[in-house]
């Protein structure tokens, strides 16, 4: 039963195998990159609020550090499995490599449900986690970050424990900290802006003037909001966004063919990200179904909300004029929809390139921490632009050269970079 069921790590390996085949990697390199370099399994005993002791299972997986210290989040999840963590560590290796930042891939976690834990108990888990792997992590070895059900608070506890154990200040040990506590400016904007930096480059390669384009955005969270802002700054016309309506328990698309006014919409958005439907109508927006965004007669689609939004069914609705998809969300396109894109010759900026602004900014946080000098937001964003632009062109160049689909090219370049580093180090 177990071997038949869905296994994320197996999926990651299959994906790698495909790319390795295309790259013609030798068996030794394949063996090395198919599996993590190191896996740490450990027990974290915690004295609970009621005085009892509970032992939690913790993990850290370092998939590959040939290009630099490992980087990856720490997940608190009740159903955490080592296979999930291994898969995610592998993906981190590729993600860092595709934007060409000098970091490897890692991931960690603790099997626990924060819903059953008090903050003090969670703090003890965080500190216990660091105590167990203190020798194997650090600013020059492996740098954790927030992930599922962990946040800045957890990172600060972990950093504090690390600094206590090592006897010095190492803000670069961990990322995702609040500004003022070693956090970087520009993080809120990073992902959304990153999407548009790559989109800008893609359009320019395709010979399309961004000023003459229109785009439909799905979602109205951080990513979407900043993507819309930058896109419009560049002169593009965003015709819609979609957002979740908590009262109706469904999403709606807010459309204005002449172009939405972001600030106007933000003015009628509650702090939970919901746009007031009645007020939007009053401002001349058409309030349509959740899926309406995908069928807009636009040049560009920016899915920046959930997984599997563009699938075999919805892909049929896309406009004939649609040319570029910039994947702001993780995994918004299903393989079936990918096939349609390939057939229709639609240009896709794959998720792990398009939304790599986030991890790049984490890298910047780490860099700033290590030198204990912090940049202005403008500096951060301009450096981000450089990284994203360069990353796009590398992938695009390869895609053109190999006549490959962008998604495949991105994987190829990532794997190739890691394989090369291993080779140069003489590991393979």
């Amino acid at each position: 039963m177990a071997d038949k069921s869905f296994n994320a790590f197996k999926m990651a390996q299959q994906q790698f195998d495909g790319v390795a085949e295309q790259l013609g990697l030798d068996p030794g390199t394949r063996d090395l990159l198919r599996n993590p370099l190191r896996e740490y399994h450990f027990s974290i005993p915690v004295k609970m609020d009621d005085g009892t002791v509970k032992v939690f299972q913790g993990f850290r997986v370092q998939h590959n550090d040939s290009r630099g210290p490992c980087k990856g989040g720490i997940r608190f999840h009740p159903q955490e499995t080592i296979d999930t963590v291994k898969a995610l560590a592998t993906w981190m290796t590729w993600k860092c490599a595709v934007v060409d930042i000098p970091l490897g891939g890692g991931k960690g976690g603790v099997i626990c449900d924060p819903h059953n834990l008090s903050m003090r108990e969670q703090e003890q888990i965080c500190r216990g986690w660091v105590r167990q792997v203190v020798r194997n992590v650090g600013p020059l070895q492996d740098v954790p970050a927030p992930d599922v059900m962990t946040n800045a608070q957890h990172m600060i506890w972990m950093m504090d424990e690390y600094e206590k154990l090592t006897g010095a200040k190492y803000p670069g040990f961990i990322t995702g900290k609040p500004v003022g506590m070693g956090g970087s400016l520009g993080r809120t904007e990073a992902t959304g802006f990153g999407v548009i930096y790559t989109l800008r480059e893609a359009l320019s390669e395709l010979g399309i003037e961004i000023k003459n384009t229109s785009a439909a955005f799905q979602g109205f969270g951080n990513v979407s909001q900043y993507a819309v802002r930058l896109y419009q700054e560049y002169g593009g016309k965003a015709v819609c966004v979609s957002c979740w309506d908590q009262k109706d328990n469904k999403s709606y698309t807010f459309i204005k063919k002449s172009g939405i006014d972001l600030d106007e919409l933000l003015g009628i958005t509650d702090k939970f990200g919901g746009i007031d439907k009645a007020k939007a109508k009053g401002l001349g927006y058409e309030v349509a179904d959740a899926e309406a965004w995908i069928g807009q007669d636009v040049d560009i689609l920016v899915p920046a909300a959930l997984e599997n939004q563009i699938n075999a069914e919805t892909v049929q609705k896309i406009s004939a004029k649609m040319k570029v998809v910039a994947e702001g969300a993780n995994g918004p396109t299903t393989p079936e929809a990918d096939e349609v894109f390939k057939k229709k010759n639609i240009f896709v900026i794959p998720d792990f390139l398009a939304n790599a602004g986030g991890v790049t900014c984490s890298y910047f946080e780490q860099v700033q921490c290590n030198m204990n000098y912090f940049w202005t937001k403008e500096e951060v964003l301009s450096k981000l632009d450089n990284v994203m632009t360069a990353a796009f062109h590398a992938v695009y160049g390869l895609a053109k050269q190999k006549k490959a689909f962008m998604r495949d090219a991105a994987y190829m370049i990532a794997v190739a970079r890691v394989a090369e580093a291993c080779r140069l180090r003489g590991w393979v």
Partner: protein
Amino acid sequence: MNNSQNPIDKLLHDMRERAKELNCLYQVEELLTRTNLPLSEIFTQLLQVIPGGYQFPNICQVRIVHEDHTYQSPGFTPSTRVQRVDIKEEEKVIGFIEVSYTRDVPQTENSYFLKDEQKLLQTIAERIGRTVLHFKLEQVSREWETAQKDLSDKIKKEWMVVIDLLRRTDQNLYIHLGRKMVYHLFWNGVMEAKELLKSLSKDQGAAQTEMSDDMNRPSQKKSQLELLELSDKTFRIAARYLSDSDILGRIQKWIQEDKASFLSRAINNIDMPLVDVINAITHYHYISGGTYELSPPMEKGLRVSLIRRFFSDQLDFINIAKNHIEVRHFYDLVQRIIYPANGYGRLGGKSAGLFLAQKILTKPGDHSEVLCELKFPKTWYITTDAILNFLSYNNLEEVNEQKYKEIDQIRLEYHNVVQLLKNAHFPIEIIKGLSMALDDLGNKPLIVRSSSLLEDRMGMAFSGKYKSLFLANQGTKQERLDALTDAIAEVYASIFGPDPIEYRAERGLLDFHEEMGIMIQEVVGQKVGDYYLPAFAGVAFSNNEFRWSPRIKREDGLARLVPGLGTRAVDRVSDDYPILISPGIPNLRVNVTADETMRYSPRRIDVINLKTCSFESMEITALLTECGSQYPGIENIVSVYEDDHIYSPSALGLDFSKANLFVTFEGWISRTPFVKQLQCMLKTLQEKMSTPVDIEFAHDGRQLYLLQCRPQSSTAGNVASLIPKDIAEDRIIFTANRYISNGKLPDITHIVYVDPENYSLLERSEQMIEVGQAVGKLNKLLPKRRFILMGPGRWGSRGDIKLGVPVTYSDFNNTAALIEIARKKGNYVPELSFGTHFFQDLVESSIRYLPLYPDDPGIIFNERFLLDAQNYFPDILPESAALADTIRVIEVPRAASGRVLRVLMNADLGEALGFLATPDSQASAERERVEVSETASDDHWGWRLRMAERIAGQLDPGRFGVKAMYVFGSTKNATAGPGSDIDLLIHFQGSERQKQELVLWLEGWSLCLAEINYSRTGYKSGGLLDYHLLTDEDIAKKTSFAVKIDAATNAARPLALKSQ
């Protein structure tokens, strides 16, 4: 005197007689004021003076008997022509005075004496009584002086002085104390006391043997003198056996108790109007100097009587209350009671609950340290009978019959009743009382709460049925008084409201003699900008019936907190959430991630607007932007969201215009003793009241106030179900014994079963997402609250979706219960979610959550039934038929020969049972009760079905181009509530014009039915019909609602059209 005399003569005669009387009275008065004379001398002289006031002084003789002495006119001879009046000293007869004639005299109006002579003697007797008292008091005061002198000279022991004094001045009390003392000595084994008692009973015993054949003859009464001697002996014995201070202490106590006897008489006399009881309490408070030294039995007796008189005669209540409410507590209480003249009312259930809780919590004990800061809002009470008084004062008694009318008539007339009562006048004593109350309460906003007799009955969920009204209480005294009386009238009117009456009728309480007391409470809080509000408020329960983590125990309790007035915590508000905490384990939050915390944070706040004098609900953000800096303790209420991180505000304070603030109560929960106080309060109340409690509280930023307290069992919907033990195993679908809350799902007709085994075999995540989507579709198609979802692991799993079906709240918001199945995998049992992702949605919509552990020992899990029953899933959702191995839809009555699934959950036993049961109509009424706003009886759907049939019967198929008509949804499934639509499907084949006509025709019906429904139920709607026109093509393709026609399960029901 004879009748022939003319009127003038009679008048003159009368006046002469009157002058004589006055003269006599004057002389008597002169005599009685000569205090230098001894009493005997005064009496002797009176004998000479009195005859002068009579018609025939020469033959008039006087006799005065005072205690053992007799004074009479010289040559006194007994006569039958006599007039006699008792002489009383403080109501006690101490003798008499009589006037008689020695020979016959003419009679007037059948009497030898004139009417005025009768009055004269009466007056003289009264004056004598008073003089005697005066003499006595004078003597007492002299005695006291000597006694004090004795004391200071230390000639006698203190107690002896007292006893001595009493013996001379108040023999009855002396004898009373003697009797108490002899018993006391006897109890303590003093032999001489035994002898003394024996000698006493020997006399009686002798008497008894004497009259053994005549039991009914009274025993001989001992003379006063004998009794005095007995007491003398007793105290001599006491002097030998007891210490002086002991004797003195006892004497003091007994004297004190004697003083309270009038109180006990007043309270125990059920005919005594409340005003006299209150006077007695006040009087006793003064004479006892507030010390209330009563013997335990007497104190207890008085407590019980007072509790019964003021609060309740329910034994459950008295049994508990008598241990906490003391006699002295009533003095403060009665200062704030407003009652009709000669009323007999009580204070009602709500008042009783709060008063008892207050006394429990303020009584010193283990909780005292934690709860020393606890406060109670100042409260005035109007007794329950004031409403009757009010009605009769305004000649409105007929309103009382309102409850026996038809419900639609009650509803129709209710608005008039409200207006009638609002325009009526309050009796003057009530107005006076309210005016005093307003002076006492000042111009703080007020809440007028109902406190009725029904609310007092333990186990009755009468909360929220009657009105509670907030008053801004601003303006001139007259304006405030007008607003207050207006509010009271409105609260009174709510007794006659259709909803409470319907509720009572359903529970057989219509004939209960309902009376409504009123509590006028100051609203806890302070001014913030133009608004008045507490910093926060909420409700709390001793038992947590909605646990979001297995670590939370039922007894850890549950609190619902909201900023501002507590109204939003008391009622479930569909679009907002309170903050939930379990006071026993406050750090285990429902919401953990920033996303969850924000999504479930309260958005609106209830306040009193002092400017407009109205109760308002506003956005918290708006209030904070306007006047956040004035909000007390705001830094303990909100957290700041920044960079995916939620944290408590820094010491620099908050920038209300910029900061992204969310209500979390983080500060109050983690940095103040508030939760500890709350928990201590719940625990103490639960322990002392021997029942889980349900309290309302408010906090003004400095102190916590308790506003209301009642037994938790009275809360509807969370009643523990009895778990039958005799269900045959083949009828059981599942049992459970872990993390059980209370509840009952009486008649489940459909089970959606996601097979854990097959779900885990799905290879691609898309398939799992599809399962989630299919569940979402089923949720819209299956009868609301009549189906349950059963599935593996964590419903709504967001991370690894193979652990549970990925659904959101909207995908299952119509289910009756969400059941998670934890099957063992090897030696590993997966952790369940407890619905954490949407926990608060479950709470607010009363969807039950139940975890099943089929592999636990002793647990029954009838997998065979779930797998063998016919699966209707492919028929309902043909487009997803591929998932039929994973999703099974079971129509229970078809699979179990007409039976339904009944799920009973009992948290007390920690047991739940799902079994096949025969459907009963009673159950369906109970089920609807559980729902928040949808009350239903069989009538709602029955009427709707009849209406649907009538519409079809009138619909001319030829005229409108209609082929067929169907009814579906709640009307068809017999689940319709008062607010339900009638769902109709119309197979339409006509032209565009026919369509327009049909729509017009249906709209007419829709509006008419909506109007009728409003008068039946009070639910307003713009139209009652929800109809869908389907074309041939729709039906062929089975698009949207067409799927309902000829559906495999829960199919729409065809209706007969008008025959052509």
